[in-house]
């Protein structure tokens, strides 16, 4: 594996020079333990909190009046809700991917970004999880989607992809949660021992569960962590596969495609890394952790984006090709409608955001210069949202019988809830940064030369 200490030509190291176990520990734990809170944080959190209030209001009104306050209709039965759901779930893929797959691939550079990437995953999945519930006509009956012994002797219908969704998403959330928590335990112990005031000590102490870094514990810990990674890897791939089934199982032209699973997964990673960068770039700036999240990390992430972006592009091409090649009038029309129909501008915007613009990442400057990378990442996030909009709305609005064609116009409530979840996501991120170590301290320690010496013996 590559030695992170030595700096290859032009490639930034995964950790800045001159750090010791101590300095790493202090630098990161201080972010959490120092008082008082920075004003920047307060402002940021304040704004996102207000947006959460908007979200709550919108949800209240939704439950009061019904989904009719949205733009959904017949034929377009799914609108923003499902678009946002898929978008958030996609974003929620980066975390587990980074912590699990990159761990198995022994990509040590992951150590400094996996922690907040995982947190980001949790929050994204939480946002995503809202939508399937909200978009129900009768949300208070959501529990009918779970198999529980009831007086009706009736069960969920396991042939429906929506039930698969329920299981996939809840499993994914649970596993990500425990994975993240396990990773936190040693760092919580560190905080417990650093904390000055009693409350912090007790809270962190309780969460650390009395971790004392025993060699035996570390041994079992590592095994469990590795196994979890091994389990999470197929899981993360399965989740978006299942989400793509929501569409692929349907007969709607534009949905009924076998290419969906791989191309959805790629898209998920694509948007996931975009979100990681959108978060990492400002964070490393404001908290001065450029030495832990170095250009190297940015560049690697950018490369992953470039790669997955190309897979996604391939997906689009194949989709179009199959539409044409199938010789099926409805499939053909689906393609024609994307290119010439009323939503054509959105389709072209999608192609630009997801395929054309990200090609700048071939140029090193764009991979390493934070600002550029930040903008490209935002563009990718937008693009991926558009992709889901095209898949959901444009496929539905003109399907088999011309008589039933329609249009979809989002209402202000659609927007309120979409933006609301973004606020919810941001608020959660702010809280996380403030009260938990955003970078895995103990894993960072293993990157130091001293740690490596043991092995080199």
């Amino acid at each position, binding site marked *: 594996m590559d030695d992170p200490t030595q700096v290859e030509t032009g490639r930034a190291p995964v950790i800045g020079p001159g750090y010791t176990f101590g300095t790493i520990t202090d630098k990161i734990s201080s972010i959490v333990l120092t008082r008082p809170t920075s004003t920047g944080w307060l402002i940021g959190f304040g704004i996102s909190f207000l947006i959460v209030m908007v979200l709550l209001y919108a949800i209240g009104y939704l439950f009061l009046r019904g989904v009719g306050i949205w733009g959904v209709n017949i034929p377009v039965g799914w609108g923003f809700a499902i678009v946002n759901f898929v978008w958030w779930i996609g974003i929620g893929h980066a975390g587990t991917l980074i912590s699990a797959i990159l761990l198995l691939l022994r990509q040590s550079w992951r150590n400094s970004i996996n922690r907040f990437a995982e947190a980001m995953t949790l929050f994204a999945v939480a946002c995503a999880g809202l939508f399937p519930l909200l978009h129900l006509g009768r949300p208070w009956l959501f529990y009918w989607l779970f198999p529980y*012994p*009831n*007086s*009706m*002797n*009736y069960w969920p219908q396991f042939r429906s992809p929506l039930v698969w969704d329920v299981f996939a998403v809840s499993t994914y959330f649970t596993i990500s949660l425990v994975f993240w928590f396990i990773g936190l335990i040693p760092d919580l112990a560190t905080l417990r021992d650093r904390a000055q005031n009693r409350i912090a000590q007790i809270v962190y*102490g309780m969460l650390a*569960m*009395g971790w004392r870094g025993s060699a035996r514990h570390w041994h079992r810990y590592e095994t469990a962590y590795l196994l979890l990674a091994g389990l999470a890897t197929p899981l993360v791939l399965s989740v978006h596969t299942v989400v793509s089934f929501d569409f692929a199982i349907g007969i709607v032209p534009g949905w009924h495609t076998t290419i969906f699973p791989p191309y959805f997964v790629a898209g998920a990673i694509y948007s996931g890394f975009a979100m990681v960068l959108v978060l990492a770039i400002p964070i490393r700036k404001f908290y001065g952790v450029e030495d832990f999240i170095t250009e190297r990390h940015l560049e690697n992430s950018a490369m992953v984006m470039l790669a997955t972006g190309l897979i996604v592009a391939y997906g689009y091409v194949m989709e179009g090709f199959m539409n044409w090649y199938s010789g099926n009038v409805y499939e053909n029309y689906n393609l024609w409608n994307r290119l010439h129909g009323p939503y054509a501008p959105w389709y072209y915007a999608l192609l630009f955001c997801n395929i054309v613009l990200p090609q700048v990442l071939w140029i090193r400057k764009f991979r390493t210069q934070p600002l550029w990378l930040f903008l490209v990442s935002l563009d990718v996030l937008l693009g991926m949202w558009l992709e889901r909009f095209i898949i959901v709305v444009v496929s539905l609005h003109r399907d088999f019988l011309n008589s039933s064609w329609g249009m979809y116009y989002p209402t202000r409530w659609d927007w309120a809830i979409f933006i609301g979840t973004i606020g919810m996501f941001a608020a959660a991120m702010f809280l996380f940064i403030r009260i938990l170590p955003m970078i895995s301290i103990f894993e960072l320690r293993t990157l130091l030369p001293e740690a490596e010496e043991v092995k080199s013996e």
Partner: protein
Amino acid sequence: MQIFHRSTNTISRATIYGAAFLVAALLWAVLELQRSPYITYAKVVRPQPVPFSHQHHVGGLGIDCRYCHTSVENSKFAGIPPTKTCINCHSQIWTGAALLEPVRESFRTGKSLVWTRVDDLPDFVYFDHSIHVNKGVGCNTCHGPVDRMPLMFNYASLQMEWCLDCHRAPEKNLRPRDQVFNMRYEQPSSEKPVELDGKIYTDQLSLGRDLIRKYNLRTVTDITSCSTCHR
């Protein structure tokens, strides 16, 4: 330094592993609740304007069900007797009874008695008395020993699982048509065999199976289709 007292070890473990059991217990409680009389009113006597006793009228006087519930054989609705039906007899007997004043008043003023519905299915369930009665489902199979009920209550939970019990295995409950209104009918046993078309039955299942054939019942698949009860 030592932050926690020794006892916290036990406590914390107890809480973690205890939580699991707590959740399970709660779930169980909810499931029990939804089947409890609190929800189903099963075996719960309901307020009525007149304390009408089926025990007295059916058990005691042996009045046939159909005397009051006239449409039970040819309508989905068994029928609630009009005040007139009560008065038929009570213009002769108990004419002074204070208990019956509401009935007499109703008859005088022409204002109906307002009873409380006892066996009350949700409005999205369409039950039809006539077909059950005609296919050999006895009154007391669902309504219980009405002839021993001083005050009326619904005997069964009337929940879907209860309906399905029978729809999935009708043979468990069928009886000859002429026994449907017999409150004292007992399922065949070696002590009390039942005779049907000259054949003697000593156990319910064989009787039930023959009745299914005799009354050509629809298959279980048919009568467990959703649209059997829901429209």
